[in-house]
């Protein structure tokens, strides 16, 4: 099977619903995207956009129940020893089964906003990272795993790693814990790193250090990255390509340059105008009016309708707008662009 665009993971029409007492939350409602080898895909979205659930689905860690994956595929290209590769549909694998366990940690690593969610507080950092190595890499002794762990800690910028390896998570500062989490995620040379708001809780100077580290590691390990954040400025500095999500749908997709120079979707534009910036003209912020609708609400049409300045009653709220390729590589889900296609 030809892989001319070097696609590593392809998500197709993913649908994940949460069946709760109060109703059904359509957290991810038909989402598609591709992550290419060695590249970074940025995912921009606020609460309820479905960005985290999409990422968790790729790792098979969405709590099910109450969640249920009711549709879609997550196709991962895994290289076989020797020639070629095979394609695995992660969505079809039992999340707690053998095969997914082999993939999770080995092929895909994940780092989170809160480092403490990755670490057990009652085990040392070293034990936890070594455990991952021993589990996934064949023919490795405990001594070798420990050495590799020390090297990893050194590589992520933790000073005196031969001492720190025996420390407990609570003995590390926030920035150090985040680095340790990166070391753990990278311990088995995954092809894909999923980063879910990894620097949101960190100070800006530490954030800059962590992002620089990730960039270096990406090049060194030839690793793809899925970078999730609500911070447009950060994503602008990190991603090659970006998707913007809102209430479970992809609203816009483009290369980073294109998205920032020529944003098309009213939500993308409104988001950009509503955030304070460190440079550029200082004008009164234009907030997005209204607030997020109830997560249980079902939208027959565009979910952004109630807050959109460009909405057309009778059109936007009656049918869900399709995702349309307006210029090559630039996709938008909005009736304003429905008539325009790259290939008329």
């Amino acid at each position: 099977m030809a892989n001319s665009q070097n696609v590593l993971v392809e998500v197709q029409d993913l649908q994940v619903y949460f069946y709760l007492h109060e109703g059904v939350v359509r957290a991810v409602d038909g989402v598609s995207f591709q992550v290419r080898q060695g590249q970074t895909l940025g995912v921009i979205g606020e609460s309820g956009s479905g960005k985290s659930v999409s990422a968790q689905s790729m790792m098979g860690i969405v709590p099910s129940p109450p969640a249920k994956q009711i549709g879609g595929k997550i196709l991962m290209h895994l290289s076989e020893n020797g020639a070629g590769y095979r394609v695995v549909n992660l969505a079809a694998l039992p999340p707690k089964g053998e095969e997914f366990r082999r993939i999770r940690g080995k092929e895909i690593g994940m780092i989170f906003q809160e480092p403490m969610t990755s670490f057990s507080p009652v085990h040392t950092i070293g034990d936890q990272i070594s455990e991952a190595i021993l589990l996934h890499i064949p023919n490795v002794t405990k001594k070798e795993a420990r050495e590799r762990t020390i090297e990893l800690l050194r590589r992520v910028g933790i000073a005196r790693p031969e001492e720190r390896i025996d420390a407990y998570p609570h003995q590390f500062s926030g920035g150090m814990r985040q680095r340790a989490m990166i070391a753990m995620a990278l311990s088995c040379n995954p092809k894909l790193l999923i980063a879910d708001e990894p620097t949101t809780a960190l100070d800006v100077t530490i954030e800059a250090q962590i992002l620089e580290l990730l960039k270096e590691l990406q090049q060194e390990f030839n690793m793809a990255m899925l970078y999730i954040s609500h911070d447009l400025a950060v994503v602008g500095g990190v991603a090659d390509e970006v998707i913007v999500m809102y209430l479970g749908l992809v609203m816009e997709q483009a290369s980073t340059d294109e998205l920032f120079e020529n944003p098309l979707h009213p939500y993308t534009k409104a988001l950009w105008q509503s955030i304070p910036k460190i440079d550029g003209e200082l004008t009164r912020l234009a907030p997005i009016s209204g607030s997020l609708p109830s997560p249980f609400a079902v939208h027959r049409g565009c979910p952004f309708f109630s807050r959109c300045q460009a909405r057309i009653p009778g059109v936007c709220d009656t049918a869900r707008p399709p995702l349309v390729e307006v210029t090559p590589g630039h996709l938008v889900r909005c009736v304003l662009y429905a008539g325009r296609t790259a290939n008329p």
Partner: protein
Amino acid sequence: MAPEKETLLEIQGLKKYFPIQKGFLRRTVGYVKAVDDVSFSVKSGETLGVVGESGCGKTTMGRSLVRLYEPTDGKILLNVGDQTLSVTELNRQDMKIFRRNAQIIFQDPYASLNPRMNLLETVGEPLLVNKIAHGRDLEERVKEVITQVGLRVEHLRRFPHSFSGGQRQRIGIARALVVKPRLIIADEPVSALDVSIQAQILNLMEDLQDQYNLTYIFVSHNMSVIRYISDRIAVMYAGKLVELGPKTELLAQPKHPYTEMLLAAVPRTVERLRGQRTVTPGEPPDLTRLPSGCVFHPRCKYAQDICKVEEPKLRALGPEHQVSCHFAETLDLQGINSPHVVRVS
């Protein structure tokens, strides 16, 4: 030339130390010097932005100003009408006058509201406690202020759990506003909110400031928010005030190396520079073991021998600009160049 604004609040040598107690007998073995000898003044009607990273002391300072923490040392002077209240020395009676004039808004819209008090009770409580109003009159005042912050009168009997994060933050603002204070300390008021809601709250705070002639001390770690909202900016590091100056000047041409580092670390948004930022190694120091001399010297690329030995004092570099750095006059530091900003020579 704008008329000289009167000073509303003056802080002199504010300190807040937290003792570290160890051992069976709980002996004090040291101190976390969260706020260490901070002095500045705040003018009536202005917004003073206080920025710094984790552990710099900005939140502790904000809370010490309203005596949520008792200051370890220093004076806080609030000018109310003809009186000057020395906040740290007030008795219970006079604290009531103080609390009618200085209020605080918190960061966490979920933790800062009592889940068992409905909207009317929450916003009405300050009026009751300060004996400003009760009964019918109280309800009228509460209705007025909640409408002004964008909440609906129909929701008066609802409880916090039925409001969104942004709405709860509005409740916090209404609660602070209902006593018609002169000064509001806003401690990271938008940090916990969704991006699209932050702008609503920032604009609301600006509008209320004009309407009620409020003075804000706005604490945040987010430099972009500070740039947007402040008239003057105070930069804190490891419990110390390292720079204080007018926004435009400070951003275009910072005078303290830490300010320069902080500004350089924020990703740019203007086209050519999009996403760019400068990375500097190191972390803020352990507050129980501060470096000798200037607390910033281990991370400072301009550090000289004197910096390791002698702590620089906060001194004036111009009528409005203060810095604590031995080399403030000679360093030419990089700021943010924006179209509206003229590099001050």
